[in-house]
């Protein structure tokens, strides 16, 4: 088990390092002068030269990389070009805001998704079960960004119940003001994921219910809810955990879109801002932080799976 975790940790570290190389290369090797892009079309040659000097763009690439990489290791993301402030605190602040969105969404998805999945597996053919199948199509067919527009149109423009965009800190708006700004973004984020998770739980739950150990548990005369909770559910949730990491990937993509539409000041919106304004340190830092979170989420899912699955546990400690 320790060996397994150690191996996975090493691979996470490797992925993150490789990502620093990839991000750096793509940003610095692709054609196009950074200084030119920052200063715009009508910049004088002197201004471009001065900016290139200031950004260290005349140094050899490996030196620039080392400068950036060693900074990252120290937790220094460099200076934001457009805001002229250290990028690190900006990124961390945005990360905190995104974490609220992501945290609330994951909790909701886990609770509602699993509950719906179990319900439709135990009530095959019911209206709820059929509704879930339809929801799956909806999830595939309606792009997240279009769903955002529909939600804004309906709840903010027509009904006027909720604010369309923005964010209110807890301190300013109180719990209600804070929550009001979260309802639409979170609602948009969780819908597709709930459809995904509940479909998955439904099919693995069905498989478990048809298994022999459930038959044996029923034959023992156990009450139905004990059979479902003690025997079927733990086995049915196991495959769901592996897909959790995939869902975190979908969630990250969703957050980028949702934050942009709802003008929510999180990491995704910051990343799009950085790209639009060619703020390279902010952009590179944001990408590294998102990759790191994704890698950690994958790691946690793997470890959870190993901890919960006796078969992997055995082979892991043997190998």
């Amino acid at each position, binding site marked *: 088990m320790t060996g397994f975790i150690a191996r996975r940790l090493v691979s996470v570290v490797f992925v993150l390092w490789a*990502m620093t190389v990839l991000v750096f290369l793509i940003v610095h090797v692709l054609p196009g002068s950074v200084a030119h892009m920052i200063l715009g079309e009508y910049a004088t040659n002197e201004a471009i030269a001065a900016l290139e000097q200031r950004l260290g763009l005349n140094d050899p690439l490996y030196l620039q990389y080392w400068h950036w990489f060693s900074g990252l290791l120290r937790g220094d993301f460099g200076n934001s070009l457009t805001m002229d402030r250290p990028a690190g605190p900006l990124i961390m602040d945005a990360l905190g805001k995104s974490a609220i969105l992501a945290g609330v969404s994951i909790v909701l998805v886990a609770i509602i998704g699993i509950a719906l999945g179990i319900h439709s597996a135990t009530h095959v053919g019911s209206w709820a079960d059929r509704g879930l199948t339809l929801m799956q199509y909806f999830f595939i*067919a309606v792009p997240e960004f*279009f769903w955002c*527009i529909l939600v804004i149109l309906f709840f903010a*423009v027509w009904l006027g119940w909720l604010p369309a965009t923005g964010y209110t800190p807890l301190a300013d708006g109180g719990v209600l003001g804070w929550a009001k700004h979260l309802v639409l973004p979170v609602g948009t984020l969780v819908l597709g994921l709930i459809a995904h998770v509940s479909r998955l739980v439904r099919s693995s739950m069905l498989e478990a219910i048809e298994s022999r150990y459930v038959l044996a548990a029923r034959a023992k005369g156990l009450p139905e809810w004990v059979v479902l909770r003690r025997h079927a559910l733990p086995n049915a949730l196991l495959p769901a955990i592996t897909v959790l990491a995939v869902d975190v990937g979908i969630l990250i993509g969703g957050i980028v879109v949702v934050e942009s539409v709802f003008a929510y000041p999180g990491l995704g919106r910051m990343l799009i801002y950085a790209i*639009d304004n060619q703020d390279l340190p902010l*952009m590179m830092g944001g*990408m590294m932080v*998102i990759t790191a979170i*994704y890698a950690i989420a994958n790691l946690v899912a793997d470890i959870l799976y190993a901890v919960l699955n006796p078969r992997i546990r055995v082979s892991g400690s043997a190998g």
Partner: protein
Amino acid sequence: MKEGFTQRIPRTLVLGGIIVGSICILAALGPWIVPFEPDAFAIRERLLAPSAAHWFGTDEFGRDVFSRVLAGAHHSLLMGFGATAISLVIGVPLGLIAAFRRGWTEEAIMRGVDLMISIPPVLLGLLILAVSDPSLFKTMLAVGLVYVPIMTRVARAVALGLLAEDFVEAARARGEGGFHILAREILPNAWPPLIVETALRITFAILLGSALSFLGLGPQPPDSEWGLMIAESRPFIGEAPWIGLAPGLCLCLLLVSVNVVGEGLRDLLDPRLRGRGHG
């Protein structure tokens, strides 16, 4: 055999195919059949609601939304089919080579694939598009690259299975070279699972491509890519919701029908299902 094959074509596949086909035809004919010039401003006809003259209304510049949706249809199709084609062309050879060569070649290819998969798809797309001027082709390329690892994995898994077959052994015994075995023995037999994967991928490629366009990293104004149109409609969402709803609903229709075709093809071609049919 032939009859049994046509009988098993599900009705949803036919219906989805017809819709996808008509969208393709409309997109191809788009520039010639638009009732209005898609980019022509008409200041007196700003933000008109849908009517007999303007089926989907007009936008903030008085441009006919129906004409723009029609003229922009080819973008989504190109992004879906083009990007998937790119991921096929790059991913499949890599997967076949990885399966055939084994050793460090396979190790290098598959570790690269692992690395790409450890980046969330949208982020990988953003990374590729971040520092160059956006255009339809670049978005297509970025989406294609995002899905290369999946194609590589599928192709490798399929090829590993086929390499153990007798007909490959026979080709080896005849003294055929590696290229011949991969191109003439493995590839023709690897198509069914690859087509299924491709068909299912197209939906995601259209989704990702239009999301990137929506974020401003695709075709640029005055182009009428659907994601871009939806993004541009945001300031007018209250007074003229049709500007965004029209391309959005068309996108939904396209996504559903492409997905139905993909799932229909899977039911038709999936080797496991076919094996069950033979009993």
